[in-house]
């Protein structure tokens, strides 16, 4: 088959489609979003009834995928690394229940925090759950690993974690496809109590998982994605995980590394290969994107055993994404550098688009709050987080999806009255609703702004689950109707907006204000799509 040019994300999606996927479940999150979008745009997926609609959050996505696996079909669930925190409960327990139809969980880490609030390493979650983990080093492997992962998942009836990083997700390269495999026929688990985690059953299931662990190690030792490449100079062995292999090879353009190299793409670690390296090399350099997981494992807490180099001894920086230069320095090779950046070059941070409805919302909020002491606005994850920056400087927190409402409640409990929460429509349905119920139950004096731009804007304009439902959700949860206020955030409504805010800030209970105006990027996209359809419709 000819090579096609795919992002890492797209290679995973194409791999899933070709490997007999029946459904993909996800909530958008950079850098994982394009996996699901690729399936959504796929004609083949549409014609073959492959599910691809967005889930409300990562937990519901994980659980729904597990349900599809229970029913015997192959499912994939995708998220960014912090999404795995949200999905952690079903994720960890899915290792105990096991799978039925093949189940792959893709978690996209973001070393160097290009678009995230931390650089946590999903491999720890896989290890924690005792699940096999796959980590591709290039787009072809990303594609191939999906086939392999579904097979592994169905062989041991276990979900498999696939860990990628931003660089893998958003880098393009040629990929050769395989033949398309049919979807599974629906079939029940052979034991109908497999998924019933009552303690008595869970104990058995957990033992089953533990008993499988040696098999998982054997699988890693025989995996096509783990390779021991011998070298003549045994003064050091190099253990590289995922993309680190490429950065290593970039430093050896002729393709020959003088030292033994262990290329790791599947965990648990291939024990016999690590043993071989430990036996024949004086020391081991561990190179991994993210946290020093393998390094810590090999080094041990006291570091009295093997001589291990890596992030912990400063051979490689402790944080941030890897690159070829970091490897050059670690290998004692000549480092290269172009010209210094002239002093006059200033930063160009991302900003709210001109005409963005959030600008009007922050304008009104800042004015309404100007009579109160500063520091009482709790916010959330989305474009509106940019309201922290100049010239708005309007928010005081951004922690995790939904934390705005609950943190405002906690601050109000501590006597900060009024406390304000600013959250987007999609983030609200993702994780804000339950927190709002907490506040309603205690009639907490908080004012919640649900900035409704009718889309999931920051990740590129995906459908928002809140669309057309916000007032009903708030009413249903118990917000008093008089204190659900809707306004169109425009300059001409500024004074009305400020007045609404002042009234609700004075109210000693839960108020919800919904500034509602469509994201201007979304409008632009909608208009262009409309124009395109019109053009293609014209004969």
């Amino acid at each position, binding site marked *: 088959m000819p*090579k096609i*040019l795919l*992002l890492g994300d797209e290679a995973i999606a194409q791999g899933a489609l070709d490997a007999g996927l029946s459904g993909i479940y996800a909530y958008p999150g*950079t*850098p994982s*979003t*394009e996996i699901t979008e690729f399936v959504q745009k796929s004609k083949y997926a549409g014609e073959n009834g492959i599910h691809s609609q967005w889930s409300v959050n990562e937990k519901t996505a994980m659980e729904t995928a597990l349900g599809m696996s229970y029913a015997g079909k192959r499912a994939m669930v995708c998220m960014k690394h912090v999404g795995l925190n949200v999905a952690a409960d079903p994720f960890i327990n899915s290792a105990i229940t096991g799978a039925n139809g093949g189940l792959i969980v893709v978690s996209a880490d973001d070393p160097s925090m*290009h*678009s995230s609030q931390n650089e946590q390493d999903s491999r720890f979650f896989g290890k924690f759950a005792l699940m096999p983990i796959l980590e591709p080093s290039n787009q072809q492997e990303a594609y191939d690993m999906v086939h392999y992962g579904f097979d592994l998942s169905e062989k041991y009836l276990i979900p498999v974690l696939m860990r990628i990083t931003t*660089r*893998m997700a*958003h*880098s*393009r*390269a*040629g990929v050769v496809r395989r033949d398309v495999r049919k979807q599974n026929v629906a079939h029940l688990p052979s034991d109908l109590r497999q998924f019933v985690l009552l303690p008595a059953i869970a104990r058995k299931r957990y033992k089953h998982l533990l008993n499988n662990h040696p098999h998982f190690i054997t699988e890693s030792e025989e995996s096509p994605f783990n390779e021991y490449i011998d070298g003549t100079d045994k003064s050091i062995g190099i253990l590289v995980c995922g*993309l680190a292999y*490429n*950065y*290593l*090879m*970039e430093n050896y353009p002729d393709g020959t590394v003088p030292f033994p190299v262990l290329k790791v793409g599947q965990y648990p670690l291939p024990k016999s290969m690590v043993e071989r390296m430990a036996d024949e090399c004086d020391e081991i350099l561990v190179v991994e994107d993210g946290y020093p997981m393998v390094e810590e494992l090999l080094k041990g807490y006291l570091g009295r055993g093997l001589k291990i180099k890596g992030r912990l001894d400063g051979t490689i920086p402790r944080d941030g994404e890897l*690159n*070829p*230069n970091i490897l*050059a320095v670690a290998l004692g090779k000549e*480092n*290269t*550098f*172009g*010209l*210094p*950046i*002239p002093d*006059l*070059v*200033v*930063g*160009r*941070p*991302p*900003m*709210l*688009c001109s005409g963005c409805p959030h600008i009007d919302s922050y304008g009104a909020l800042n004015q309404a709050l100007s009579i109160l002491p500063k520091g009482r606005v709790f916010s959330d994850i989305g*474009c509106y987080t*940019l309201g922290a920056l*100049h010239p708005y400087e309007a928010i005081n927190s951004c922690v995790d999806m939904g934390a705005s409402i609950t943190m405002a409640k906690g601050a109000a409990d501590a006597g900060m009255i009024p406390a304000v929460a600013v959250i987007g429509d999609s983030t609200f349905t993702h994780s804000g609703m339950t927190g709002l119920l907490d506040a309603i139950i205690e009639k907490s004096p908080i004012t919640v702004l649900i900035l409704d731009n009718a889309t999931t804007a*920051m*990740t*590129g304009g995906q459908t928002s689950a809140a669309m057309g439902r916000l007032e009903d959700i708030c009413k249903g949860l118990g917000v008093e109707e008089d204190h659900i206020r809707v306004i169109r955030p425009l300059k001409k409504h500024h004074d009305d907006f400020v007045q609404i805010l002042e009234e609700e800030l004075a109210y000693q209970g839960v108020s919800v204000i919904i500034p509602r105006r469509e994201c201007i990027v979304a409008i632009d996209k909608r208009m262009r799509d409309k124009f395109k359809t019109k053009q293609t419709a014209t004969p």
Partner: protein
Amino acid sequence: MKKDIILAGVGGQGILSIAAVIGYAALEQGMFLKQAEVHGMSQRGGDVMSHLRISHDEISSDLIPFGKADLIIAVEPLESLRYLPYLSRDGWLISSSRPFTNIPNYPDIEEVLDAVRAIPQHLLLDADTMAKEAGSVKAANIVILGASAPFLGMDFELLENAVRFIFTKKGERVVDLNLKALNAGKEFAEIHQRN
């Protein structure tokens, strides 16, 4: 043949279209390609860059090492300077001279252009004006691509075909004006090189 290219600009200025054209032309010749892009938060009016690597041999890293880029292709002069640590000693910097001033502390433009002129091998052109002459200011990115053409080491026809392919969905008029833009950039580079 192997070319390592840093593409630089501001979100929305069309650096990914430049990458798509070069990428298509490279694949047509059976070359290997790796291209690391920036998605997500940075696209909101922030600085964006892409590592584009094309080669007749297999490519290892998705990222170009510092000091190894053959070309920096920038659609904005301040952004062209941000990635100088990547430029190799004999590398070329090709940039639009037209500033995109969406930040309050944008430095004095003459100082920015002087800093570009201080780079031993550079090409600075008013791509916006040239694009307007070709039919649309939106084609400024393709003017810059045209100016980079002599440094890409591939037949110009391949680039023209790639422009046709990439823009064909947008209609004949768009294809034509982008081809004009591409040629205008190329001619500028050739005149400059002769001098």
